[in-house]
């Protein structure tokens, strides 16, 4: 629902009673609807720093709330609840509980980058959306998305071999996202390949699957990449206080 049409009162905060008498006054029924407390009661002071610690979110502090991103947004056109301007504001002000209400639609960004070009302050809203989706995953608010699984499979393979072997990437991606390997489109593709019988290509593919070739002398490059990735991850984990989060969760379980 567009923000201007949103009610200040959420339906779940409305309460009516079939039979309620307070101090001798009958307050039953629709005409005596009660409104529960409906406030944001605190700000998470570090939320903006957390998002800006993740790739893409670095420039979020520049936003002046003009709304160009939301106006330009491809997804907003079909889903008025998808509102980058609104989320950027929630993050900047630290209204975490409000942000979490939309945790299941933030990932919908299609990365068309129309907002990136519309933004007069170089906030890079597309990056902010990506950073926010990652933030939700890292904090455990949403499960790992298929694209995160894909990124991981892809990166693991590059680090290990220095090459991408498509069929392995696919197999692992489908396994991790718990999808059937034999998708209808894949069966169709294989059928057509067999019909055309590209012997050379099939042989190369088969060999690559069996042998898993590596880039020669890859270990040094791989180690350097791994070191950089670890460094970045550690920084992000610190910014997001993930260690404390794990600790709290452990204590909660123990209690």
């Amino acid at each position: 629902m567009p923000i201007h049409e949103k009610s200040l009162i959420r339906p779940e905060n409305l309460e009516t009673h079939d039979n309620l008498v307070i101090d001798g006054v009958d307050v039953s029924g629709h005409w005596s609807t009660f409104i529960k407390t409906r406030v944001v009661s605190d700000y998470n002071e570090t939320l903006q720093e957390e998002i800006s610690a993740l790739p893409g979110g670095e420039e979020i502090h520049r936003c002046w709330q003009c709304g160009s991103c939301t106006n330009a947004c491809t997804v907003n056109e079909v889903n008025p609840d998808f509102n980058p301007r609104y989320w950027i504001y929630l993050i900047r002000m630290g209204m975490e509980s409000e942000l979490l209400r939309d945790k299941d639609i933030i990932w919908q960004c299609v990365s068309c980058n129309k907002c990136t070009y519309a933004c007069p302050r170089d906030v890079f809203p597309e990056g902010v959306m990506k950073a926010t989706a990652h933030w939700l995953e890292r904090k455990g608010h949403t499960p790992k998305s298929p694209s995160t699984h894909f990124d991981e499979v892809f990166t693991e393979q590059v680090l290990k071999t220095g090459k991408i072997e498509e069929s392995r990437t696919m197999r692992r991606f489908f396994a991790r996202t718990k999808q059937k390997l034999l998708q209808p489109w894949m069966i169709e593709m294989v059928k057509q390949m067999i019909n055309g019988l590209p012997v050379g290509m099939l042989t190369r593919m088969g060999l690559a699957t069996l042998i898993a070739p590596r880039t020669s002398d890859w270990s040094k490059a791989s180690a350097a990449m791994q070191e950089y990735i670890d460094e970045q991850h550690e920084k992000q984990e610190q910014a997001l206080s993930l260690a404390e989060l794990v600790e709290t969760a452990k204590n909660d379980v123990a209690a």
Partner: protein
Amino acid sequence: MTKPILILGGGPAGLAAAHSLATVGKKCVIVEKEDKLGGAPILSGYAKLVPTGEWAKDAIGGMVARVTDNAHVGIETGATVTSFDGNPGDFTAELSNGSKIEAEAAILCSGFTHFDSVNKPEWGFGTYEDVVTTTQVEQMISSGNGVRCPSDGRKPERVAILLCVGSRDRQIGREWCSKICCTVSSNLAMEIREELPDCHVYIYYMDIRTFGLYETKYYWRSQEEFKVKYIKARIAEVTSDGDKLIVKGEDTLVKRPITIPFDMVVHAIGMDPNVDNPTLAQTFGIDLEENGFVDVANRYGAMGETSRPGVFVAGAATGPETIDDSIAQGHGTAMAVLSSLKDFSKSA
């Protein structure tokens, strides 16, 4: 011997006018109702001024020193003008201390009066000790004591600055924008963050008017370097839970009601017409504009003319004004006074 120019008020505008007149050898007399010169920046104990960051006591203090020892400038402090009669070139002013001044013209540099926050009781000033005004925060900083909660002297961990207190508020008859409070507030927010890096500062606004070059230097710098948070909300009320101040309102950018605890709430108070303006208008026989500020009669053809020939006006007496613009008007109006007394172009 020619008569002097009477300058009413020894604030930035009056000090500038006196300096300009004295520099060209024209005598003037500053009549100041308080017992010392300097106007609001000195009398109210401002800290660092916008836009230079110089301390008020140095910047405006320098202007005071400059005229104090000047042979062309007479100073009457602790005095008001009780009557002002005559015509351009030949006025007689009687002062409350009994003395009489023969003057060729007068410049009213009577400035403004800070809005009294008691007139917005819903925002807690006068009820809760830790609800203060921007002027009080200026004093905390300029005194060197630092920003502390008045109730118990503790360092605040969360400060809310409410903008437009006594400005743009038709409900209490103040429809004007006081022009400087946004910039002053972001300046103060940065000062607070500098002194107390662990203190979170929130500014509640309906529009931010850090006009002109202040946009980068105050609005953005306070956010990007000092992490001051700007929240678009008109605050409904400031109450207390016995421990903290509770600020209630609606965040209008996201349409959400908010109830947030704070240690200190600062009112960014606006500029009222000088409380003496009705008396001044009568004494000097000049018109006030609809809000009660001194009416400027000629906006384009001359500088600082009032409705009465020979009586001029400069600075915040005409409406909310910055310190540097008040000073510029003081200098400019001094020139206008001189040219009104003698049309030099004809004698050349």
